[in-house]
């Protein structure tokens, strides 16, 4: 395991892997995407979901359940990280303040980022972007001030509150359709006009929940790492 033996062996196997993966991928018909399901979705999505962005239609409609899982993974990761880091000696070392420029810039950036994030979330069903992207920007909005002034930590309980409610909201929206005898996550509310802000039924609501949840989770997660990471 020591010396160059492993490197050599790794390189050999790696070379083999590369060759074989390449052979494998070359056998795939590139540019002739199968489009079995894809084509059908493209043709049916506008009618069924009312979302102009077909990727969004898939994410929230056809594969909405995946998205729930995805959100959950972030939540799991955040919880697990919290669990793992809970024993670490957080914040017993004084952290260097970020300085005035950084602080002022962060304060300045905050509203812009929040608004941008909200915009991207709300237009997720119309344009590229959506809950995740927006949520990430939102998280950045809360995370940047933390980097600028490490001494004022993020309010984790608020984040958790937002997180919890957002997640609950997603599921409750999903469960709501059960009451009408429909399957879980069946879109409701009117589909509206394709391309309008208030269209695509409940999908934007889901995106909102996702955005809030992703934002709070990412912020919490990174904040935790920073809090502990400052020490070691």
């Amino acid at each position, binding site marked *: 395991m020591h010396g160059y033996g492993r490197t050599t062996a*790794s390189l050999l196997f790696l070379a083999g892997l590369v060759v074989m993966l390449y052979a494998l991928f*070359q056998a795939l018909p590139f540019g002739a995407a199968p489009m079995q399901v894809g084509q059908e979705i493209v043709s049916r999505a506008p009618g069924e979901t009312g979302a102009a962005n077909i*990727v969004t*239609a898939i994410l929230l409609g056809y594969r909405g359940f995946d998205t729930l899982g995805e959100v959950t993974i972030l939540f799991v990761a*955040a919880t697990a990280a919290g669990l*793992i880091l809970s024993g670490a000696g957080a914040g017993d070392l004084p952290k260097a303040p970020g300085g005035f420029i950084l602080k002022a810039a962060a304060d300045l950036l905050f509203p812009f980022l929040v608004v941008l994030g909200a915009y991207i979330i709300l237009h997720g069903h119309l344009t590229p972007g959506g809950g995740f992207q927006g949520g990430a920007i939102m998280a950045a909005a809360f995370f940047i001030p933390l980097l600028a002034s490490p001494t004022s930590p993020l309010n984790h309980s608020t984040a958790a509150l937002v997180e919890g409610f957002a997640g609950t909201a997603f599921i409750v929206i999903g469960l709501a359709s059960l009451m009408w005898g429909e399957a879980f996550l069946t879109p409701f509310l009117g589909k509206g006009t394709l*391309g309008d802000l208030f269209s695509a039924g409940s999908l934007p609501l889901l995106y909102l929940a996702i955005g809030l949840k992703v934002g709070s989770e990412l912020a919490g997660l990174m904040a935790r790492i920073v809090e502990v990471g400052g020490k*070691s």
Partner: protein
Amino acid sequence: MSPDALLVAEYLGRALYGGAILLIAIGIYAMVARYNLMRVLLGLALVESGVNLFLVAIGFRPEAAAPIIVGGVTDVPMVDPLPQALVLTAIVIGVGVLALAAALLIRVKETYGTLDTREVAKFLAAEPADAAPAAGTAVAGTPARETVNAGSAS
């Protein structure tokens, strides 16, 4: 579809798949041949990127548009939207895993004082305090005296 487009598609395909494989290979190399856990994690991130690139590349069609309906026009050829959705999910999953990994990394460094995989492996292997290696040499032996004669002349 124009022959040009097909040619472009072929080269693009090679480039995209090749790039994906390269990313994966570099990532795996970092994970396999490097001893620093941080690099292992970076390698992991590379592998994930490579895989995502591969997934996106699957959905490519020459001369097709992004899967967003603009102005109600639905009959333009669009790239397969499904892999894009998948990749979006996969990216987020990767982020979560990496974040957790980072958290673990911090604890590993804190606990063992090192990020060297060899040291960590040594620590793990040595964990059962006085691991008696000879725990099973003699499964069953008769008391010494009897074994002498327990032979066979056959």
